[in-house]
């Protein structure tokens, strides 16, 4: 079984202060810590689980800067076999359709059974790249997958719908699956794997290497323009309880008790 897993290096902004740069269309990411996108981490694990169950090989594919190789090596350490990193600043990265076309260009010509990727990037939240990629490759897809069962020439998946409901779907292979968080328990890379990962193949390619015309994936090709970024006004009517942690706890306890809430 041949699997490709597409991963993205993203900033963790869950507890960080986010500031928009003077250009108005980028954020100051100099103080963010970066790591593998959460859902992609589950996709890596799923690809390794599939390899362990069915044999074959897993190729990591990522578009990103040199510093993202730490993340790629970690995926290799967990059991992926080789990797391709696409680096080319001519790709219109704000448009998932352009990213999908670039990834498809890196995959075309290779045989594969499955392409896995996270269902959503935690930085820009489009949830579009994987499904667009399937169309570019001309293969089946299912999004928001939280269960995968490979059968003869087919795959049965569960898609996560709203309200806790799941949808069981069967697809002919090859197919693209966008993986939802929680599908498995991502492993920690074993020490031996980390050592081996350093020796695994990691090719760095540009659009030219891939034979992709930059005109087809660049700012001119994209049909959407990122006009501006801004910090939304936050309206909070909350009563902020101040003081040392202990005082805060006491005040809150008293509010809850007096209000008959507990």
């Amino acid at each position, binding site marked *: 079984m041949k699997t490709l897993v597409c991963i993205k290096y993203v900033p963790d902004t869950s507890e960080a202060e986010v500031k928009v740069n003077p250009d108005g269309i980028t954020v100051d990411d100099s103080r963010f810590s970066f790591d593998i996108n959460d859902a992609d981490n589950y996709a890596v694990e799923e690809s390794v689980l599939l390899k362990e169950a069915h044999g074959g090989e897993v190729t990591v594919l990522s578009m990103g800067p040199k510093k993202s190789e730490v993340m790629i090596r970690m995926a290799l350490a967990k059991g992926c076999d080789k990797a391709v990193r696409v680096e080319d600043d001519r790709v219109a990265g704000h448009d*998932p359709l352009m990213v999908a076309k670039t990834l498809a260009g890196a995959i075309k010509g290779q045989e594969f059974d499955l392409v896995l990727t996270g269902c959503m990037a935690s930085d820009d*939240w489009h949830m579009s790249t994987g499904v667009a990629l399937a169309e570019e490759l001309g293969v089946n897809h299912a999004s928001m997958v939280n269960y995968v069962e490979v059968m003869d020439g087919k795959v049965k998946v569960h898609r996560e719908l709203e309200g806790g409901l799941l949808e069981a779907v069967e697809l002919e292979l090859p197919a693209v699956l966008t993986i939802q968080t929680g599908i498995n328990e991502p492993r920690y890379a074993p020490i031996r794997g980390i050592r081996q990962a350093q020796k695994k193949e990691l090719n760095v390619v540009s659009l030219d290497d891939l034979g992709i015309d930059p005109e087809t994936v660049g700012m001119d090709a994209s049909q959407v323009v990122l006009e501006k970024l801004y910090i*939304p006004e936050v309206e909070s009517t909350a009563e902020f309880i101040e003081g040392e942690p202990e005082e805060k*706890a006491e005040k809150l306890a008293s509010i809850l008790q007096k209000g008959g809430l507990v």
Partner: protein
Amino acid sequence: MGNVLVLAEHRQGELRDVSFEMLAVAPAIAKDMGGEAVVLLVGSGMDDLAKKMAGYGVKVLVVDDPNFENFNAEKYQKVLSALIDDLKPAVLMTGHTAQGVDFMPALAVEKNLPLAADTIGLAYEDGTLKATRSMYSGKVNAVMAFKPAETYLVTFREGAVEAPEAAAEGSVEKLDNPFTDDVPYRKFVEYVEAEVGDVDITQSDILVAIGRGLKEDKNLPVVEELAAAIKADLAGSRAATDAGWIPHDRQVGTSGKAVKPKLYIAMGISGAFQHLAGMKGAKTIVAINKDPEAPIFTVADYAIVDDLFKVVPKLTEKLKELK
């Protein structure tokens, strides 16, 4: 003609909320673009649902065929591809839902049309359609301007706006099904209901909810003790479920449960919109989080910006004393 075609979403015989919510946005945009909002229903046995949508004062187009009994991304893509050619809408809008995200990006690629996904607002200014999106944990909004195209594709976030009131009676028109074939590659098998656990959190009076800020499962006793002291049930965000700290049926949010307790104490939960959608119906909301920018504070009644491990044990102790 600048019609805005709104794909009404339904599942198991029920219209989804987002179908109505989109009607809070579509008519105004359509008017600015020189057209009208038109609802499209694709399914099997759509008469009742069509009538209900028409009750919002819009024209409803229906593709009614047993072939569409259950959602299938491949079939939806074929039908919508054909209808874009026939109807030439200025905008095609769907929910940014498990349905919308499953075919709209593929449709955009197939038709070479632009897509703005997870849109929370739309505006038509000086001949340009602009979509507002939310990024970076909800801390930044982005305005995406569409370049001129035959049809703009938009997926709209569920819960981003309030549904309008039902209005005058609209009309229903049946369309010929442009796609009667079966699809060979993708097959709907069945719906699988989530497992039911020992506690139904939709019925709880008090919920103590945990998120990523709990950090690891060995910290669970901190919150369990608080829950025990105030007879609360434990619930949590997607991160808490993914990490295995709480069972799936205790997940609050879009992909979990919508809850309405009289008290909801959110600890270490940043408050992604998917989570807020599930808990903003709580009567009183307390949020404890280290990050002063956390969106959870926008819905909180009482807020503490601090490390939960410094506050919660003391809170438990105090509440026990006050009993």
